[in-house]
């Protein structure tokens, strides 16, 4: 009886494989769907006046509950709040690419005028983003890019930021010693670049060795555990680089536990308020500050610009990239960051 | 009646842990006969059946099917032979239809495809139903049917498997009279069609009505094999009970009306629709009142209502003159009631918990607590006391009750009630499936309680037990108290007659 069932399934499978086309498929990116989308004639959206007509902008977050995304959202809202014809709607991807894909197709359905998205996964969202653009909806990605040409990418410095931090740490530990990395969720392009930048630069310092790296999924709590195990694994740690501030804070907590704060430097990235506070308190060495409000605002501006203009992504050869200037923050410089700029 | 023998069991021996339950038992079923199997509880009927259906393995003896010897080691074996058993706990599947249940595992297919041919299956079922004219419909979901119809479904399942021998164990136990009637009709029609039936029942009138021959077991031995003509109620009773009606061993008893002591428990017009109706009786302090009757007569339901385990519709209960409403079990216990349920394993005790925990279960209000903490010493003492009083073996307070023997389990269940001030103790089939030794201890115990002024309500299908233990005997039938033996000579026969409504049959 089981066998017969299997037969059923096989029939199904064959059916699908027919859909798939049984030909030997060439795998070169030449004629891939996403790009062929672009080459096709795209729908001309007759330009609206973003400052008078009814305008809907969707903000699709990777995970709405992080400080950064919240700051972006606020930035976007503030940018638009003076125009009451503009409505901003936030969607939560719950850190899942599938959700974002669904949401975006949803948003296209409701013909929004622009999408600001933080792609959980560049590859996964490539098609959706392309679809949106095809339907004349400009897409602006924040930090996390999509693997297809679209209206704009507004991001914090990633690779370069990594370089900067590497140099800072190197300087602080006297260009010699052992460093650990606390990674975010693997497969997120921006943080991967950040890490890459860091690794590449550290490579220039022969005396400095990256002795371990562990993922803590961007979470403060996990970072604490990971750091704990590092602390027990290695008697000597000179530098800690956490891919984001939340994890840096977690690491710092762990280090405080065993009172080894003076042994090592702990660096984060992003520059959220809590981190800055800790830097002032001396429990965190430094971070890369980016004003996420400005970043959000920038994204919104680009969105409005695209809505207003009659040309669209199809004229672009590659995604225009707007990079916000990274600010190194340490105990000495933290004062310069005005309270009102802390998100 | 054709004399061709279809099943023959010879010299069957079986014993559990050195206790012999079957000794040199014979059973012979001819083609097309209804062969009744009778005997008191513990006479070994069900053990014999379990051996025939492969649930137990026999220690000695041989089983012959149509002449040649066969080994029955599993239900499959006995099905393949063409024997099917209608269990007391039904083995039909509620969510499936009648047809699906009947052909479960051997559904008809459409041609070569694996697909079930529902039309054909229903037609086949309908054909079966018509053939034996059962009041069933192939498309009914079994879950929506009453017990009776479920049982018929099961019988039909047996028939559809081309069984030639049906074993029915107390089939009418949970049936309403109407359902029973239908069943009898069916059994008779089956008989005509040449099927054989082994029919196990306490109900004399059923046996009287249905069976061609009757094998009577007692204490695991063949007592008699009666042919239709010989089946004569009183004779049957005597054979079952074993003794000629003489004064010995509590087969007969002279009850004497107790001299007026004060009434402890009074039940008036207690009614629970569909279970029992307008039941009234009174019990005096220190009296053991036996409640006799057949399974399904409403005895258990009655006592459960008195205890407060179930709700009754109307009527009143008075405890020492005060009106007593068993709104919650907790309250009943506080009022001094105790209850030993019929289904020991399912309701009596908690298998995983130790003897200690089980004995203490109802009595934590008696155990002193220091800042909420149970003083484990007192708990232990209580348990040891119970173990001593009941002589529970092994006397290990920490042994999970689930691992004790049936007798000792029951002792634990009883024991916990001895630990508190009882006014009324209700025991439902206290000695079912318990070895003789334990029985006696339990009887003595009940008497001792009574002597201390406790009212004991004893529900039992064991006539000897009833006679031996109780001071007064109520007999229930179809939810009513139809007879009360309060004084004068009473024999097991009298009780059985009353319980089985034999008189009605005779007249």
């Amino acid at each position: 009886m089981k066998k017969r069932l299997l037969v059923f399934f096989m029939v199904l499978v064959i059916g699908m494989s027919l859909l798939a086309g049984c030909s030997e498929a060439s795998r070169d990116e030449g004629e891939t769907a996403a790009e062929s989308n672009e080459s096709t004639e795209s729908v001309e959206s007759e330009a609206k006046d973003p400052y008078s007509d009814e305008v809907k902008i969707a903000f699709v977050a990777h995970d709405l509950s992080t400080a950064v995304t919240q700051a972006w959202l606020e930035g976007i809202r503030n940018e638009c709040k003076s125009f009451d014809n503009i409505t901003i709607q936030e969607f939560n991807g719950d850190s899942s690419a599938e959700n974002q894909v669904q949401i975006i197709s949803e948003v296209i359905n409701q013909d929004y005028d622009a999408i600001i998205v933080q792609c959980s996964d560049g590859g996964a969202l490539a098609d959706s983003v392309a679809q949106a653009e095809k339907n004349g909806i400009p897409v602006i990605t924040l930090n996390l890019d999509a693997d297809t040409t679209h209206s704009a990418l507004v991001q914090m410095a990633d690779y370069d930021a990594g370089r900067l931090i590497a140099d800072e740490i190197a300087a602080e530990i006297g260009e010699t010693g052992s460093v650990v990395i606390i990674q975010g969720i693997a497969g997120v392009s921006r943080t991967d670049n950040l890490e890459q930048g860091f690794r590449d630069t550290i490579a220039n310092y022969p005396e400095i060795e990256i002795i371990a790296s562990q993922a803590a999924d961007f979470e403060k709590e996990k970072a604490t555990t990971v750091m704990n195990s590092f602390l027990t694994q290695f008697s000597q740690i000179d530098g800690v680089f956490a891919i984001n501030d939340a994890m840096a804070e977690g690491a710092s907590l762990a280090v405080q536990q065993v009172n080894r704060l003076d042994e090592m430097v702990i660096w984060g990235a992003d520059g959220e308020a809590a981190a800055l506070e800790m830097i002032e308190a001396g429990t965190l060495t430094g971070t890369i500050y980016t004003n996420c409000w400005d970043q959000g605002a920038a994204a919104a501006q680009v969105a409005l610009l695209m809505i207003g203009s009659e040309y669209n992504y199809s004229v672009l050869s590659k995604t225009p990239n707007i990079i916000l200037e990274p600010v190194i923050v340490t105990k000495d410089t933290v004062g310069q960051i005005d309270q009102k700029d802390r998100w | 009646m054709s004399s061709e023998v279809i099943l023959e069991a010879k010299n069957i021996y079986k014993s559990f842990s050195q206790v012999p339950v079957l000794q040199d038992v014979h059973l012979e079923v001819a083609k097309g006969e209804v062969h009744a199997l009778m005997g008191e509880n513990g006479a070994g009927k069900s053990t014999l059946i379990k051996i025939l259906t492969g649930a137990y393995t026999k220690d000695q003896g041989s089983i012959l099917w149509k002449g040649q010897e066969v080994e029955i080691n599993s239900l499959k074996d006995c099905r393949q032979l063409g024997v099917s058993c209608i269990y007391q706990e039904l083995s039909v599947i509620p969510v499936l239809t009648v047809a699906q249940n009947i052909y479960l595992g051997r559904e008809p297919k459409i041609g070569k495809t694996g697909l079930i041919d529902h039309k054909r299956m229903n037609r086949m079922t309908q054909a079966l139903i018509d053939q034996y004219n059962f009041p069933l419909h192939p498309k009914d979901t079994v879950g929506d049917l009453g017990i009776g119809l479920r049982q018929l479904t099961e019988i039909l399942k047996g028939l559809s498997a081309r069984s030639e021998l049906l074993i029915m164990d107390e089939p009418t136990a949970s049936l309403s009279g109407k359902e029973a009637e239908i069943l009898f009709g069916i059994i008779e029609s089956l008989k005509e069609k040449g099927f054989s039936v082994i029919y196990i029942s306490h109900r004399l009138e059923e046996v009287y009505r249905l069976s061609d021959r009757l094998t009577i077991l007692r204490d695991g031995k063949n007592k008699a094999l009666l042919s239709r003509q010989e089946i004569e109620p009183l004779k049957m009773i005597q054979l079952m009970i074993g003794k000629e009606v003489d004064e010995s061993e509590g087969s007969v008893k002279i009850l004497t009306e107790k001299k007026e002591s004060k009434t402890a428990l009074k039940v008036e017009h207690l009614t629970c629709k569909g279970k029992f109706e307008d039941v009234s009786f009174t019990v005096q302090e220190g009296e053991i009142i036996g409640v006799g009757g057949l399974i399904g007569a409403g005895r258990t339901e009655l006592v459960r209502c008195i205890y407060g385990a179930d709700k009754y519709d109307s009527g009143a209960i008075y405890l020492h003159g005060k009106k007593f409403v068993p709104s919650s079990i907790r309250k009943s216990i506080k009022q001094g009631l105790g209850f030993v349920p019929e289904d020991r394993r399912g309701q009596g005790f908690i298998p995983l918990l130790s003897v200690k925990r089980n004995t203490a279960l109802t009595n934590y209000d008696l155990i002193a607590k220091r800042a909420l903490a149970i003083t484990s010493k007192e708990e232990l003492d209580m348990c040891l006391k119970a173990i001593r009083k009941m002589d529970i073996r092994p006397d290990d307070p920490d042994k999970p009750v689930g691992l004790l023997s049936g007798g000792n389990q029951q002792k634990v269940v009883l024991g916990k009630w001895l630990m508190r001030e009882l006014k009324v103790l209700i025991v439902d089939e206290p000695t079912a499936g318990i070895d003789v030794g334990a029985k006696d201890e339990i009887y003595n115990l009940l008497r001792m309680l009574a002597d201390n002024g406790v009212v004991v309500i004893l529900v039992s299908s064991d006539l000897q037990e009833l006679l031996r233990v109780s001071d007064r005997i109520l007999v229930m039938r179809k939810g009513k108290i139809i007879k009360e033996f309060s004084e004068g000579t009473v024999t097991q026969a009298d009780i059985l007659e009353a319980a089985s409504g034999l008189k009605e049959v005779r007249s």
Partner: protein
Amino acid sequence: MKRIKFERYSKVLLLLLFIAVLTILKPKSFPTVGNISNVLWSISVIGILVSGTVFPLLLGGIDLSIGSLMGLSACITVISIQKLNYANQSVFLGIGCAVIAGLVVGGFHGVVVTVFKVPPFLVTFATQSIVLGITQVLTNNKIISCLSPKLFTSIGLGRIGPFTFPIYLMLGIVLISYFVLNKTVFGRYVYAVGGNIEAARISGIDHQFVTVVSYMISGLTAAIGGVVLASMTQQGMASTGSGYETDVITAAVVGGVSLAGGEGKIQDAVIGAILVGLLNNGMNLVGVPSTNQGLIKGLVIIGAVALDVANKNDNKIRLFKAGKGVKKDV
């Protein structure tokens, strides 16, 4: 009999074995006060939770909502501290509110389970997302960091002797739970209801009351765990404690608490928690990347539980001819 004896000590043996292995593998880094205190610190929350969640489990129920409940209580605490601008007494208020929230949600579970006879899995499964949603609304999805007052932060980070405060808290709660389960009437009743609800009822035990209270206890410990976690991470967010339910249930089951109810000891459950904790710690020490740890963890759990089941099986079958207990297939 011998079997049962072995069963009684098997958990401890397993634990010792584990420690031995780790000590051999990592003689320098594992058996250090620092590391031990780390392990304990990281399991303290699970320990706290399991000592409450064991109650529904013993009833044959389950509580999937504890994770999101932790989030709720964490956020409630942090918010109320923030609202009363970080004054000390605000901490007490916050904890108070959190605890109440926990009790309320737990009570709700209990009522739905016992009154409406709904499978606990589904109820708690639903409240899991409801509570999470409420928390998100409460925090409108922001992380609320809370670095003061000292009184609050020291809940999670304060040290007494070599160990941090949560460890002592855990020990305290475990002891209380042990006391309730093994010394009080209520504890007896929990086992009784879990072991055979009908018999319990016939013995005059109010199983509905027992059920409701048990789920409330589970909610309570979840709330406390949330507070501790908030203080450990010095922040409150909706996703705080998410996924803890699996760790906790796993710990309990590895500790020999049967999901069928009626058997299991709190001390074993705690040992189970320690085992899970050690496993994580060990894998970190040996340097198994966190993404791959699930594999080993899963296999170990399957192994442990399978052994446990096999161990109990034959007893079980003797215990329940009625058929309750482990599903056995032909």
